[in-house]
């Protein structure tokens, strides 16, 4: 029995004992997702106990070092843990921009003090983070950002405005790009962390076409931020931001893989629309569109596995996340278009009980942002063309 085999059997036993049955059910709506934070809400007590159990072992962030609240697992062990969780369909105990975005950046660029201050609360789900990148008039063009941080001795004073700040109204802290030098473009940007409870911070939710408001406009009016909260070098925040964007893309690219409730699109369509005497979905053109979609979706599932393996072994092209983000988000949009077609008029309902308040239609509309947020599809294609295919600029 190898070490990994014994790790697997121990893990399996532990999960069996500690993962509540409710946490093995598929996610049904946004409320089923646990985000943690100072004002965390738990729809079901099992959410909290599952989070605490996992956090106690550092398994909310299994591959982070133990001294920062992680599990200290090797890549092989991490993979085993994920496989064993998948085996029992265990939910992710904690969804967190702190884990998926800030954490990797802090591990790479943070000081020891910063790591010790911020990573353990992220791992335990105690502090919820949001990201302050985009600004009005600086959509895909992050370098055009105008939020300023003026040097005031031991602290900076922040003034400006961000948009598309995910869950800013629910977050405890923000990691934020600010301009510390107005003489250059990309060079003059710094990466700061600060508490959203600081005086001068205010947020205003943006109502989306889905009817939800996951994003905010965020305003900074003379916000004081201690200088120790600068990550990386002053005026070099762009490096941190780029590194972090790569991780965000990895996360978002996973979206192409999602499947509602474990049923494939085709099976769900057959459940709703019925099959003919050959067992084929009783809507021939839709069936064929779904089948061709499923080829791509399942091929992309293999691509994601390959990408993760390559990342783990340091073999992935540094711009490959752009390809993954592009393909995964376009696929996810296509999936929801097809799901809506399969649902017909019934899934067009926006408020009815049968649709859980229009959840499928709202989710369909929500996916339209996938190819915009975190760098548009157009930006990803530019990156692939230039950095992977090495196509010329003129």
């Amino acid at each position, binding site marked *: 029995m190898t070490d990994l085999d014994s790790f697997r059997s121990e893990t399996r036993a532990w999960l069996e004992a500690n993962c509540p049955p409710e946490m093995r059910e598929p996610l049904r709506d946004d409320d089923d997702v646990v985000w943690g934070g100072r004002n965390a809400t738990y729809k079901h007590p099992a959410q909290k106990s599952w989070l605490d159990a996992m956090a106690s072992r550092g398994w909310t962030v299994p591959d982070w070092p133990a001294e920062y609240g992680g599990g200290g697992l090797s890549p092989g062990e991490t993979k085993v843990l994920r496989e064993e969780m998948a085996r029992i369909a265990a939910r992710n105990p904690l969804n967190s921009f702190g884990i998926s975005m800030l954490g990797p950046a802090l591990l790479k660029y943070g000081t020891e003090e910063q790591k010790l201050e911020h990573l353990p609360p992220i791992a335990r789900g105690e502090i919820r983070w949001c990201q302050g990148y*985009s600004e009005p008039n600086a*959509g*895909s*063009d992050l370098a*055009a950002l105008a939020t300023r941080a003026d040097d005031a001795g031991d602290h900076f004073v922040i003034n400006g405005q961000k*948009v*598309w700040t995910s869950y800013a109204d629910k977050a405890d802290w923000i990691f934020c790009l600010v301009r510390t030098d107005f003489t250059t473009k990309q060079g003059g940007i710094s990466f700061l962390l600060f508490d959203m409870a600081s005086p001068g911070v205010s947020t205003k939710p*943006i*109502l*989306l*076409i889905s*009817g939800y408001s996951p994003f905010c406009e965020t305003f900074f009016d003379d916000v004081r931020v201690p200088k120790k909260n600068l990550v990386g070098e002053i005026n070099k925040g762009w490096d941190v931001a780029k590194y972090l964007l790569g991780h965000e893309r990895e996360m978002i690219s996973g979206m192409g893989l999602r499947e509602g409730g474990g049923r494939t699109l085709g099976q769900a369509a057959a459940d*709703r*629309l019925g099959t003919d005497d050959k067992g084929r979905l009783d*809507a*021939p*053109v*839709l069936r064929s*569109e779904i089948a061709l979609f499923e080829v791509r979706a399942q091929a992309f599932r293999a691509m994601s596995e390959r990408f993760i393996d390559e990342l783990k072994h340091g073999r992935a092209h540094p711009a490959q996340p752009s390809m993954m983000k592009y393909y995964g988000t376009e696929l996810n*949009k296509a999936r929801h*278009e097809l799901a*809506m*077609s399969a*649902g*017909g*008029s*019934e*899934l*067009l*309902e*926006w*408020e*009815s009980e049968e649709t859980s308040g*229009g959840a499928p*239609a709202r989710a369909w*509309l929500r996916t*339209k*942002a996938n*190819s*915009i*947020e975190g760098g*548009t*599809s*157009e930006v990803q*294609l530019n990156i692939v063309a230039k950095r992977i295919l090495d196509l010329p600029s003129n």
Partner: protein
Amino acid sequence: MPLFLSEEQTMLRDAARDFVGEQAPVSHLRSLRDADDPTGFSRDLWRSFGEMGFNGILIPEDQGGLGLGAVAAGVVLEEVGRNLTPSPFLPTAIGAVTALNGGAAAHRERWFPAILSGEAVAALAIDEGPKHQPERTAMRAERSGNGFRLTGAKQFVAGGHVADLLIVAARTAGAPGEEDGITLFAVEKDAANLHADPRRLADSSLAARLRFDGVEVDADAVIGEVDGGAATLRRMLGHVRAGASSELLGVGGGAMDMTVSYLKERKQFGVRIGAFQALQHRAAHLYSEMEVARAATLKAQQMLDAGDAKADAAVSIAKAMTGMATTLAVQEGVQMHGGIGMTDEYDIGFYMKRARVLAEAFGDVGYHADRLAEGAGY
């Protein structure tokens, strides 16, 4: 007849464009939506449609209408689409009028004046499942006393909760899937044992689920022949689908125009984003799809007006093509607008929602493509 609008049709288009653009632009939909309006449209606006003469486009001149045809109706519907105007125009002035034109004079005398004035509203009770499949109508209409007794359910009935008149397809004979045995009924508002459950849809319109728990109607509620409603139903659906195609064209055209304007204004990396060649090519491709869809729709409507035997296939081509083109228009519209396109504050999202509802209504792309294949023998 050349395949573009006649002078008369162009005048009608201009009148409709001015009227709808002024009286019911997208802000009109937005205020109804924000008020959670329980009707789904403005009755005042509907009366104004009547005053403009629009409601009588398909009503014969000797019955007070304009005696025009499908092309003229499409001209109005395209402006309705462009402005996302909530209106019972399609089911009432197109659907019910076409159905009643195929039935007894008594129906027309009863309904046309109120439709002309914009007092009456009609709804079409056709769909019974999540997808449009009128040939599979299963709802039963059994002989009962001097009339019929209707039992079954309908859904996706736009305005069905407030309609004064319901056009209902039911089966007096035969089995689902058969053409023979379908009968069309004119069912009046507030019939006993008829339950309407209005559902707000993604585009803020209201469509009803209807339950017929043994609704009794007189024999003269039948439109046309008993068991022989299929022909009238087909003609009605031909006009309604062509009309929906025009409305889709308006939605797609409106979305495209907004998007092209945005491409000319919005700057990124120091240049107007409309100068990026990748976006230019996608916009030009979208333009091509919309132009082709426009031609297909006008062709279908001219064929309907000429009584061409192949009009039915042409309508399916139009509905499928406008479904594809407009879906592309709203998808490109939201994507090219970037983040702002995702906000409720901006109008492009309304176009996306309306496009999906209309693309689904009366048969989506797949339904009509399949229907064409079947008709062509493959």
